[in-house]
């Protein structure tokens, strides 16, 4: 499990926009329709399998369905685990590239200096998704790709990073030795 600090609270979780997964979705729909279409085409040509071959066809069909199920589940898992978790202390970026390939990075909210956005093209403009570019103190720029509801996500991250800045400033001692605001 992803471990959070005892006083850490998850504010929201962002997952990639569904449009990114359109290609596997279309492939899945096409592959699902394929056996039915093939069977219909053969039936229209008057093909009927000999009775002793029916269990063979059924077995191959079940294995095919099983393959589709695995394909769907792996794609869903890649979607589900590829997430950005924004807590009241940090931003955790989990990039699930494949079944055994992932990158995890995190930034403390108080290190975020600016959040910019990029909407790269016509489809992202209409479907409201794009890239968030987060500038941090000391660690350079950090890009989160294909974020849905881009402007709202940017506002949220900025809002919580400002809160983190204020909380940090309040904890820092002032030059005269007293606690901050």
């Amino acid at each position: 499990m992803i471990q959070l600090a005892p006083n850490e609270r998850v504010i929201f979780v962002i997952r990639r926009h569904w449009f990114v997964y359109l290609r596997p979705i279309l492939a899945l729909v096409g592959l699902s329709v394929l056996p039915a279409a093939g069977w219909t085409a053969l039936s229209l040509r008057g093909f009927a399998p000999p009775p002793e071959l029916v269990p063979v066809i059924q077995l191959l069909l079940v294995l095919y369905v099983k393959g589709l199920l695995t394909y769907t589940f792996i794609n869903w898992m890649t979607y589900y685990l590829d997430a950005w978790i924004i807590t009241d202390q940090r931003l955790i970026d989990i990039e699930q590239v494949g079944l055994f390939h992932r990158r995890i990075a995190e930034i403390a909210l108080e290190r975020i200096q600016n959040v910019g956005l990029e909407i790269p093209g016509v489809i992202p403009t209409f479907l409201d998704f794009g890239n968030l570019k987060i500038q941090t103190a000391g660690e350079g720029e950090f890009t989160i790709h294909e974020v849905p509801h881009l402007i709202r996500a940017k506002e949220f991250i900025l809002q919580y990073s400002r809160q983190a800045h204020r909380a940090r400033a309040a904890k820092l001692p002032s030059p005269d030795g007293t606690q901050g605001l």
Partner: protein
Amino acid sequence: MTVSLSLRTVLAIVLALAAAADFAISIAVIYHLHRYTLPTWRLANILALAYLALSLALFAAALLFLLRMPPEIRIETPLLVIPPL
């Protein structure tokens, strides 16, 4: 020169290989869903179990169809002879 194989035996081997591969993938998926999620993401664990149950059901169906298959169906395949070097 050809060799004659029972189709049922061939498909039983295919089924065993598919089941072994699927078992490995299922374990990997369940491990990932446990390791890289937050405790509040219950959907992951529910769907992992649903996937496992569906997989078992499909393999049971495949086994049933395999058992229904007449053993006398045979496939003829050319015997692979590796020439001496």
